[in-house]
């Protein structure tokens, strides 16, 4: 049997990190970064960064991707990349609409 058994202490650490992240994101949500001279939409950036970090921990440790084959890594990366294509090309439309004032 070739599967890797993740030790319990890693699971506990990750779990605590996730709870911490949740608390952090709630706390940061109430701080108005715009007022303190941070770049605009910084609240969103903070929230998304924490969410991505939490998601990454779940993927790597709870879902064992850290200990999985290269194929699984490629699959996870491809899924995210494809969602990226959906977003990027759709927003290439919405973000550039105002640029040319001819017809539409």
């Amino acid at each position, binding site marked *: 049997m070739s599967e890797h058994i993740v030790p319990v202490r890693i699971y506990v650490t990750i779990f605590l990190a996730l709870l911490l992240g949740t608390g952090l994101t709630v706390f940061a949500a109430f701080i108005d970064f715009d007022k303190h001279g941070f770049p605009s939409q910084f609240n969103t950036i903070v929230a998304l960064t924490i969410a991505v970090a939490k998601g990454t921990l779940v993927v790597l440790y709870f879902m064992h991707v850290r200990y999985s084959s290269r*194929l699984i890594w490629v699959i996870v990366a*491809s*899924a995210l990349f*494809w969602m990226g*294509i*959906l977003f990027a*090309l*759709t927003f*290439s*439309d*919405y*973000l*550039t*609409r105002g*640029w*040319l004032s*001819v017809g*539409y």
Partner: protein
Amino acid sequence: MQAIESFEVPTPPKVNYINAQYGLKSWLLTKDHKRIALLYLGSVTFFFFIGGLYAMMIRLELLTPQGDLLQSTTYNKVFTQHGIIMVFFFLIPSIPATLGNFLIPMMIGAKDLAFPRINLLSWYIYLAGGLITIYALLAGGVDTGWTFYTPFSTTFSNSYVVATGLGIFINGFSSILTGLNFIVTIHTMRAPGMTWFRMPLFIWSHYATSLIMILGTPVIAITVLLLAFERVARVGIFDPALGGDPVLFQHLFWFYSHPAVYIMVLPGMGVISELVANFSRKNIFGYSFVAFSSLAIAVFGFLVWGHHLFVTPQSVYAGMIFSFLSFAVAIPSAIKVFNWTATLYKSSISYDTPMLYALGFIGLFTIGGMTGLFLASLATDVHLSDTYFVIAHFHYIMVGGTLMAYLGGLHYWWPKISGRMYPEGWGRFSALVIFVGFNLTFLPQFVAGYLGMPRRYHAYPPEFQVFNVLSTAGASILGFGMLIPAIYFVWSMRYGKHAEANPWHLPGLEWRTQSPPPTENFEVTPIVTWDAYEFAPREETEVVGKFGPELERI
């Protein structure tokens, strides 16, 4: 040719997957991928026939410039339903679910797909989706165009949009499960020695198709759900009057529906690779280029959907990006056409029915693909959009391409599937009739579209009548041509000449077992030491291909 010609299949008692078990239950509850492929073959043909009936009504209406056969609202339903049935219930499942299901395990030396019960489930899901859609058609039909553009489909149409959407949504799962099954099978169940680059190109195409299925289909699923949600709840997801954006619908819809056309054509290309190599007795020219082109088509196909939105408020800059990428996506397809042609060059071509279909595909797909370039170019697309030029373009690829490949593949593998030969004379005759009928139907439509005839109209200015009459005449010939194989395939199951294990004398793994195959495909799991299209014998091939109980597995 020694090793192939003298290959002997151990003669088992005449038990094969067809007669291994009798009774309706053994078919409806089967886990055998070959039986499931036949279940699909039957249902896919049924839906093709229904879609064909709608096509007949369209062509009959368009014989005269006036809208005299059908009312405009009825005509709207007819072309919508023609599109929905053909796209979702014929073109997308046809080759993967029939030929793919049957052959993929055999070509890689496996006993079945990775998840046989999920395979059966996907057929039942396909049927459920199909039956719900048929209910919607019978209850009153849907008139939004197969593209379901909002806000007509969400707010103004009085037809069975939600029911049809539900049928399509359910059918999507069938596609997803098939693709999932293929991907896992190809990764994990190849026989010893069957490396990626020894696999037939048919497998590469189906792998690429499966990638598209799993990455794209979920998006149409959520799109159809949101469409239904908007219609039922009357919220403004895509309706500008309520705060939504109709172009968002088109982005989401075409994000799937453009790659969907590659789901429809890639398996056909896989069949053509097999036919071209095997019926010219020559290794495919540039195997790895063809293999990688399949993957490239799958990837690039996801980057071009905006070319369906050139005449919407989509930004011009996005349009330029999509236009450029649409030109780029033609390249891997062109590579394939070059490679097939180079394979044929100076080879030993035998003009059997499958080869006739393959040659037809190469020419017709090229025409279809090249006319796509006019549509990919922003300025010309403004003129050609929503005209018959577009219709001719995609029918050249779908019918001239996919359908021809499907028929070619059916003929090629018929002896393996049924254990019988089809009548070769009738095969060649019907291939020619179909070719002539097809071109007569769709070539005039290019001209009519260029001259300005709009699509989805049941009445048109009289100057276009000549093209429509030619088109309808062609359609009758095409319809007649397609009836012939339907008849002789059924005929052959009872009266056709029995086929030996390898009637075409070819090196493929699927030919190294009896016709029809036993339920578990191979007596002993093969160990593969040869390339996919090895026609020139090598010294080592003397040992290759002979299995028996004394051969040990590594």
